[in-house]
C-alpha cells in the first residue's frame, strides 16, 4: 500500500467546496431549527397538559428514528403523493438541497426543543416569581427573563448538539449532495484512494468541530460572565 499526499493536495480545492456546502447546511438548519424549537420548548414547558402533549409526538418521532430515514422519507417519500408532485410544492421537494435542509432542521428542532425545555425548567423559581411580583405580563416575562436565562443555561449542551448536527449533515451525501462527504466519495470514485481522501475529509470535520467548540466557549464566557469572579 502506498500513501499519496499528492492526491490530497490535488483535490484539496474540491474538498473545500464540499466544506462550504456542509457549513451552509449546518448553519442554516441550526438557525431554522432554533426558531422552530423555541415555541416547541415553551409548549413543552407549559403547565397545561394538552399544550404539553401536542409537540410530544413530533419530538418523539424525530428523536426515536434515524436521521437517514427522515431524509429518505422527505426526499424519496414525497414523490409518492400526487398532491406534492402536481403542485408548486414539487419545486421544493424535487431538490435534494431543500430536502436535506428540511430534514436537518426538523431533526435538530426536536433535539433542541428538549434541551431548551430542560433549560427553562432549570431556571430558579425565585427569578420567575420575582418577575411576576414586578407585574410582568406572561409575554414580557418570557421575552425578558425566561428565554435569555434559558439561553445561557442551554449553551454548553447546544454546542454538543451542533457538533452532532455537523456529523449528521454527512448524510446529505446519500441524496446526491456534494457536501464534504459527498465530495470525498466522488473524488474516490475517480482516484480510488479511499484512505487518503477520507482521511483528509475527516480532518476537515475535526477542524470544523474544533472551531465550533472554540466559538461556543467564547460566547459562553460572555453570556455567563456574571458567574466568573473578575480577574
Amino acid at each position, binding site marked *: 500500500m502506498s500513501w499519496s499526499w499528492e492526491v490530497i493536495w490535488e483535490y484539496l480545492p474540491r474538498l473545500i467546496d464540499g466544506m462550504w456546502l456542509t457549513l451552509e447546511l449546518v448553519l442554516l438548519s441550526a438557525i431554522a431549527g432554533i426558531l422552530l424549537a423555541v415555541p416547541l420548548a415553551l409548549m413543552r414547558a407549559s403547565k397545561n397538559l394538552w399544550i404539553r402533549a401536542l409537540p410530544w409526538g413530533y419530538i418523539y418521532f424525530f428523536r*426515536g428514528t*434515524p436521521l437517514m430515514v427522515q431524509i429518505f*422519507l422527505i426526499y424519496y417519500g414525497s*414523490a*409518492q403523493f400526487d398532491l406534492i408532485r402536481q403542485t408548486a410544492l414539487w419545486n421544493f421537494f424535487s431538490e435534494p438541497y431543500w430536502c436535506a435542509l428540511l430534514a436537518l432542521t426538523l431533526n435538530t428542532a426536536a433535539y433542541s426543543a428538549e434541551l431548551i425545555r430542560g433549560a427553562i425548567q432549570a431556571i430558579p423559581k425565585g427569578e420567575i416569581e420575582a418577575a411576576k411580583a414586578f407585574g410582568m405580563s406572561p409575554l414580557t416575562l418570557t421575552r425578558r427573563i425566561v428565554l435569555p436565562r434559558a439561553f445561557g443555561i442551554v449553551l454548553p449542551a447546544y454546542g454538543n448538539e451542533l457538533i452532532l448536527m455537523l456529523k449528521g449533515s454527512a448524510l446529505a451525501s446519500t441524496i446526491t449532495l456534494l457536501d464534504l*462527504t459527498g465530495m470525498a466519495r466522488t473524488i474516490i470514485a475517480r482516484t480510488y484512494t479511499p484512505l487518503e481522501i*477520507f482521511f483528509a475529509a475527516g480532518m476537515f*470535520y*475535526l477542524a470544523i*468541530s474544533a472551531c465550533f467548540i472554540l466559538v461556543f466557549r467564547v460566547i459562553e464566557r460572555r453570556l455567563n460572565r456574571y458567574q466568573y469572579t473578575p480577574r
Partner: protein
Amino acid sequence: MLDLQGFGHLLWQGAWVTVQLALVSLFFGLILGLAGAAAKLSPVAPLRWLATGYTTLVRGIPELLLVLTLYFGGSMLLMAVAERFGYTEYIEVSPFAAGVAALSIAFGAYATEVFRAAIQAIPQGQWESAAALGMSPTLTFRRVVLPQVWRLALPGLGNLFQVLLKDTALVSVVGLNDLMRQAYVATGSTKEPFTFYMAAALIYLGLTAVSTLISAWLEHRADPALNRGAIT
C-alpha cells in the same frame, strides 16, 4: 402482522439484521469504552494521550465517514498488513464487519467518557481501604470499583445504545441488508417510498422504545432505591 404487499417479511428480516448489528457493536463498544476509560485514568502518560486522541478524533468525525472508510479502506489496510506476512490474495471486508468495526469504535469513544466519569465518581476512600486490606490496584478495580461502575454508568450507556441503534442505518450505505436497505429494496419494486420508509421508521421507533424499557429495567434492577448520582 402488516403484509405491505408481500414485503412485510423482508422488513422484519432487515430489522433482525439491524438488531444483530447493534448488539454485536454494543459488545465490542463496551470493551473499547472500558479500555479507553482505563487508559484515560492510567498513570502512564502515553496511554492517556492515546485515549484522548481516540475520543477527540472519533467524536469529531461523522459516523458515516467512519463506516465508509472502514468499508472501502478496510480491505486495503488489511491487505497491506497481510502482505507483510506473505499473504497476497484479495481480502474483502464484509459490510457487516465494517459496520461492527465503525459502530463499536464510535460507541467506544463516547462510552470511554461515561465509564471515566463513573470510575471517578467512586470515592477515593474505597481505593485506600482496599489498599489497606492488601489488595493490588488491579484487584481493587475488578472487585470493588467495576461492580459499582456498572450502576453509575447505566443511564449514560442506555442513551448511547439508542444512538448506536439509530446509527446502524448508516451501514445500509455500504450494502448491508438491514432494515433501511430492505425498505429501499421494497421501494424499488413497489414505487411507494413513503409507505416503506414510514414502516421502517415505525420499526426503528419500536426498537428504540424497547431499548428504553430494557435500560429502565436494568437501571431499576441495579439501583432499586431510585437513581441517585446517575451519570449521563
